[in-house]
């Protein structure tokens, strides 16, 4: 699912399950692609406060 032949691996986004995850949200404990991250964390004021960190890639 995430193997790319050993050189570089990508997690699928936990929300859509399709795109490669680029960010990790600590509060949600989830890896998200950029689009889903924007969608999820724009939902309300509390989720906007979540700290997200880029994934190693």
């Amino acid at each position, binding site marked *: 699912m995430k193997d790319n032949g050993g050189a570089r*691996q990508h997690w699928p986004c936990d929300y859509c399950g399709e795109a490669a995850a680029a960010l*990790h949200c600590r*509060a*949600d404990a989830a890896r998200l692609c950029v689009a889903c991250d924007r969608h*999820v964390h724009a939902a309300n*004021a*509390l*989720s906007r406060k979540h700290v997200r960190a880029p994934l*190693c890639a």
Partner: protein
Amino acid sequence: MIMDALCDFCGEQRPTIYCRSDAASLCLSCDHNVHSANTLSQRHMRTLLCDRCASQPAAVRCLEENTSLCQNCDWNGHAATSLAAGHLRQTINCYSGCPSSEELARIWSFDFDAPSAATEPNCEEGISMMSINDSGVSNHCGVQQDCSLLDIANTSLMSDPPTVEKLKSEDEMNLRPLPTHQPAQSVSMAPKVPSVTDDDMFNDGRVYENFCVDDNDLTFENYEELFGTPHVQTEQLFDDAGIDSFFEMKEMPAADCDQQLTPVQPECSNAVSADSGLCVPARQAISTISLSFSGLTGESNAGDHQDCGVSPLLLMGEQPWLPPGSEVSSAGGSRGSALSRYMEKKKRRKFDKKIRYASRKARADVRKRVKGRFVKAGEAYDYDPLNDTRSY
């Protein structure tokens, strides 16, 4: 109590729910709104807010006072010294997803404040028909035990030092709990914890007994653990009771150099100056003495703490140190027995890896590790062997 706290979201109502993922206190309606937004937020674990401080998640429910308390308020309010120590407590569960008011009422059947705070009033009818959950009995035992043990530890640590000396004289007696005292304490325990056997609560009973009979006993036990003064040291002292006090004094540096430094020092310097006229700093004096006495009686210190540097020295240095040492122990019988004892122990020496506590090894083996180091089990270390996502 604290009515100043407001919901972190709307800022209007009093918060009743605490979301661990968001680290936010919310009122019930906001909790419902926020966490139904998407699947990710639905996974957040929420629990009741502490009634007293309204800032931390509630961990237990006190049935006597009918309040939900976080761990700190629980410990503060139910100190073992007060009558409140015996209050029945029940652990509070978390929930996730989007439960309706009825479901919340079912989870927390004891609390009719939280669900009805924001939503329908018909909750209260449902609640009044529900009975209090008894599932938490075993949990509350654990909780009570934990907090009572901690309370005892707290109170014992605060008791005054002068009493410690009084205990040192009777330490053996108190280190092993006397069964006679236990019934008195178990009676007070019994009504609260009927299902738990004495075996389970033996530790607790012992602690209680120490606490109630003479809380200084526990102080001494804690003191022991805290300051690392092993009562092995007293055993060693008793072991060498046959040998004169000079040898006994030599034992002390083996056990704990730092603590025994000052009492040992004057005796050391007296003896050493009598022998070889050395007036050296304390540590050298002690090592000198241990060398000379290892020549005579040796001891476990050779293997234990003076370690490898001393033992080869011992083997070579026995001969030169023997003459000054022999002057000290006048009675030939004691010297002979001491020497033979040393030879016996020398034969039995084994400098290899020794596991003293198999249970500790078992625990260490199952502990979670990251890159070979122990880590806290709950932390999100995010260690992916294929893709390391840790940010530096």
